[in-house]
């Protein structure tokens, strides 16, 4: 319990003030994350409105099944994250570790699928900055790609890449929390780090919830 008492920082009067301060700080940070991705969503909206056909055509080259599976995987990881926070709030340190390991697992599956998808794009020659020709001309028909096709893939890699970076940052934090959980560092009075990381992880999930329809589904009905 002494480790618990030392987790109250000197400048707070009690745990309640500490928790409320940190929660508000975390939410302020998440607001900046919204605006950070917001710049990308604004760019997306501008070019999608200008080149809607090119975007639909390019989107048709994504693998909707993999994207859909990944969406479910990420929702699973959100659930396990929520369960980890729940376990922490009940003081179940073993539960924290269990659910966090599951979260890490789902997160890793997501990233693994992402690697497979990126590899597909590489094989099809659709990576901006590397495959200029593939983005300008269709391999088979040798017809020029419509304007905006390039920008779609630039946006696809910028958005999913930045999203993946957020997950890659999150996983080691989750691992640290799991170890700390096993060491009994948290209790029902103090589990703020688990809760804050949970907020971050759910936020990353929300970004994907928007990326999936905006990137994968806009060409779905055109292709069928």
């Amino acid at each position, binding site marked *: 319990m002494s480790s618990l008492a030392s987790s109250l920082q000197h400048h707070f009067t009690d745990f309640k003030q500490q928790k409320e301060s940190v929660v508000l700080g975390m939410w302020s940070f998440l607001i900046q994350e*919204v605006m950070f991705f917001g710049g990308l969503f604004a760019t997306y909206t501008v070019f999608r409105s200008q080149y809607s056909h090119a975007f639909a055509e390019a989107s048709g080259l994504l693998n909707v099944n993999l994207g859909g599976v990944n969406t479910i995987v990420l929702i699973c990881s959100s659930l396990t994250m929520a369960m980890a926070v729940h376990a922490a709030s009940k003081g179940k340190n073993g539960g924290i570790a269990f659910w966090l390991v599951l979260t890490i697992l789902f997160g890793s599956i997501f990233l693994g699928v992402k690697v497979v998808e990126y590899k597909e794009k590489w094989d099809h020659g659709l990576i901006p900055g590397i495959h200029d020709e593939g983005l300008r001309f269709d391999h088979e028909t040798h017809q020029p790609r419509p304007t905006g096709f390039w920008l779609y893939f630039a946006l696809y890699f910028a958005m999913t890449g930045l999203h993946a970076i957020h997950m890659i940052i999150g996983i080691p934090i989750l691992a640290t929390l799991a170890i700390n959980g096993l060491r009994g560092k948290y209790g029902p009075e103090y589990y703020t780090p688990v809760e804050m990381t949970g907020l971050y992880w759910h936020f990353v999930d929300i970004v994907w919830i928007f990326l999936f329809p905006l990137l994968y589904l806009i060409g779905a009905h055109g292709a069928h």
Partner: protein
Amino acid sequence: MDATTHHEEHHGPTVKMYFAIFAALSVLTVATVLAAKFDFAPMLGVGLGAFVNNAVALGIACTKASLVILFFMHVKYESKLVGLAVVASVIWLAFLVLITMTDYLTRTSDWHLFVR
């Protein structure tokens, strides 16, 4: 202290609820894929059809995001201030996207064509 704990247990999130939210999110994911594969254009015309397709996709995404924010992220149980923070971020994002779009949707290069 006892009173607060009791209060939280009474109104706080439960395991059952977490799994219910998870189920809802999964169902909505399937729904958005199916809705996207359905083309509204033949039914409603090209312009309106595309609009409906987009509106359905974004509507489902917003619903899913709201579920995550309210329940997984506990905003439903936090102070009003946190709710305000969420709303503010949405408003500011709207400032950025919508005002920028007013430019791209109304650009007109050559005014003299409009002088009568």
